[in-house]
């Protein structure tokens, strides 16, 4: 293989991997928001991921200072996307923990209460097509 082919292969591999790491938290967000269950997620997962992604953005800025603009741009968009998604999940989980504490419930009891309230609300509604398409709820 020539050097150009190798470079092309490596670039395409890294962009596929970057896409997968970027959308990592999307199914989790869909699931958490549709079932209103955050009790099984560890809060440290979100905290550590958020911190790590902020640091990766910092690393991207050092690459910018070295004029490696292509690498830096990839690193920064990917990690800021993941940081935003994990921040959303972190805030959602913290809200649930606080509300559960106010009602003197455990977090799982509070989530169950929320989801049963949602079921009661939707009991007369026709199930939408979108709701049947629910592979992420598994």
């Amino acid at each position: 293989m020539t050097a150009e082919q190798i470079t092309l292969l490596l670039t395409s591999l890294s962009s596929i991997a970057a896409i997968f790491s970027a959308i990592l938290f999307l199914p989790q967000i869909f699931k958490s928001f549709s079932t209103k269950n955050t009790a099984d997620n560890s809060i440290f997962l979100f905290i550590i991921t958020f911190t790590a992604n902020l640091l990766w953005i910092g690393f991207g800025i050092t690459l910018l200072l070295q004029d490696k603009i292509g690498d830096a741009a990839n690193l920064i968009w990917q990690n800021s996307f993941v940081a935003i998604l994990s921040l959303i999940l972190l805030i959602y989980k913290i809200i649930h923990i606080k509300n559960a504490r106010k009602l003197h419930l455990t977090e799982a009891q509070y989530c169950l209460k929320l989801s049963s309230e949602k079921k009661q609300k939707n009991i007369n509604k026709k199930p939408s097509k979108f709701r049947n398409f629910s592979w992420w709820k598994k």
Partner: protein
Amino acid sequence: MDLENIIIAGLIISTIAGVLSAIAFIPQTVKSLVTKSTSGLSIGFVIFGITASTIWIIWGVLSSVFASALVNDSSSTTNPAILAAQTAAPIWTNALVLIWSLALLFSKIRNINISKKQNLTEQEYSNLQVTKIYYKHKDKKSLHSKIILKIIKSSLVQKEEL
């Protein structure tokens, strides 16, 4: 700042970030394995994690294999230690992520299968499991039991005897 300092600062930041990314899945895996309750965890999340880390490992291995073939004009450092650290980092961080997310996938699939066999939803099965673990450790005073009770505290639904 001159260029070498920026590169070293970047290396330090990326090492810390790599360590954090590598250990990010550990709390989730420990929690899922201890509580045996994974109903709130999306299987897409776990599968994407496995796919991403596998591709990153392949990428890391290929780029260190072909490092000599690529005469890289853009690489602005000639220090061999820094270059070695830069190429090794994606391999070991993603290998750790891969191991922990495989454990997560294993526990998720096991829970789905067992709950199907018992004709329960996954959520009902996990609630039963957490309650069982709670009763096993409730009155014990060892450190082990205390840690387990602390981990399962947020997943506990039923405090009454079954």
